[in-house]
C-alpha cells in the first residue's frame, strides 16, 4: 500500500466518523450533546488554522536557526590552495 493510499483510507474513515457525529447519527461518548453541537461545526476550521499556524512557526523557526558557516568556506579555500600546490608538485595538471 502506498503512503497516499494509506492516508486516503485513514482520512476517509475519520471524515465519515466526523460526519456521522455532525448529523447526530452517532453520539460522541463522554461529552454532552450541547457542547458537541457547538464544537463539531468549527472543528475542521480549527484543524486548518492549527496546521497553518504550525507551518508558519516551523518555517520561521527553521529560518531563524539556519546556520551560516563562513568558517567552512574559509577553511575550504585554504585547503584548495594547499591541494593545488601539492598536486602540481606531484605532476597532476591543476587549472
Amino acid at each position, binding site marked *: 500500500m502506498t*503512503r497516499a493510499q494509506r492516508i486516503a483510507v485513514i482520512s476517509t474513515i475519520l471524515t465519515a466518523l466526523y460526519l456521522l457525529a455532525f448529523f447526530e447519527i452517532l453520539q460522541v461518548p463522554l461529552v454532552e450533546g450541547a457542547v458537541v453541537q457547538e464544537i463539531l461545526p468549527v472543528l475542521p476550521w480549527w484543524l486548518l488554522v492549527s496546521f497553518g499556524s504550525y*507551518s508558519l512557526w516551523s518555517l520561521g523557526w527553521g529560518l531563524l536557526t539556519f*546556520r551560516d558557516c563562513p568558517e567552512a568556506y574559509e577553511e*575550504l579555500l585554504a585547503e584548495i590552495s594547499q591541494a593545488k600546490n601539492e598536486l602540481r608538485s606531484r605532476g597532476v595538471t591543476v587549472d
Partner: protein
Amino acid sequence: MNPFASSAALDMQGQFSTQDTHMYSVILPTYNERKNLPIIVWLLAKMFADNQLAWEIIVVDDASPDGTQEIARQLATTYGEDKIILKPRAGKLGLGTAYIHGLNFVRGDFVIIMDADFSHHPKFIPQFIQQQKAHNFDIVTGTRYRSSAAPSLANAKPGGVHGWDLKRKLVSRGANFLAATVLNPGVSDLTGSFRLYKRSVLQHIISVTQSKGYVFQMEMMVRAKALGYTVGEVPITFVDRLYGESKLGADEIVSYGKGVWGLFVGV
C-alpha cells in the same frame, strides 16, 4: 615470547595495515569537473590516509569534453591504479545510472556518494563511519539542517550552509517542510546527497528507484525508510557554489513539487 605475536600466529590471524578492516568506496559522477576533480581526490586521499582507512574512488565520467578523464588518469598514476578507478561512459546519461554503473566496480563494503564540486567536504566521512559503527546503520546521511547528530555523536559540529541568501533559505526550509509533512521520511534533510551506504543496501535501493535528477536522491531515502532500513544523521556544512551565485528557478520548484507528489503516490 608472546604466542600471539609469533609469525605462525600472525599468518593465521592476518596482518592488516588498516585498523578498520572495511573498505570504503566513493562513487564520484563527474561531468566537466576538470578543475574540481584533483582537489576533491586530494581531500579524500588525505582524509582516508589520516584515518588509516582502506579506500578507492570510482570516477564515473559522462564523456566530459573538458578533459576530466585525462586528469583522472593522471591522478590514478599519482595515487595508484587500485585507488583511483576511472570508468567512463559514452554520454551524459544521468546520476542514477552513474551510480548503478559505478556499483558494478565497487570492491568495498561501504559506498559513499557525494558531489564533486566542494559542496560536500570529505572531513565528515570519518564521522559518518563512526555513526555507522556505533549503531550499525544501513545508511548514514549528512544533514544541513541539524546542529547535532541523530542519534547523538560526541564530536559532531553543527551543520549549516554557506552561500545562501534569506530567500534561498526560505525556499529550502519550505521545500523540506513540504516533503516532511507529505512524506514523513524520518530524516531532516531529504534532498541531501552526501551519504554512506552499506553496499548491499545501496544495490537494493537503486534497483527499485525510478526517478531521475535530484528527486532520485529523495526517492532513495523514502524507499529506504519504506523498506525498513535504519538511517542515522550527521550534521554537515554545505558550501554551495564556491564559484558564483546560487540560483533556483521557478521550474525547479515546480518539478520538486511534482517529485514530492510522485513519491507520495508511488511509494
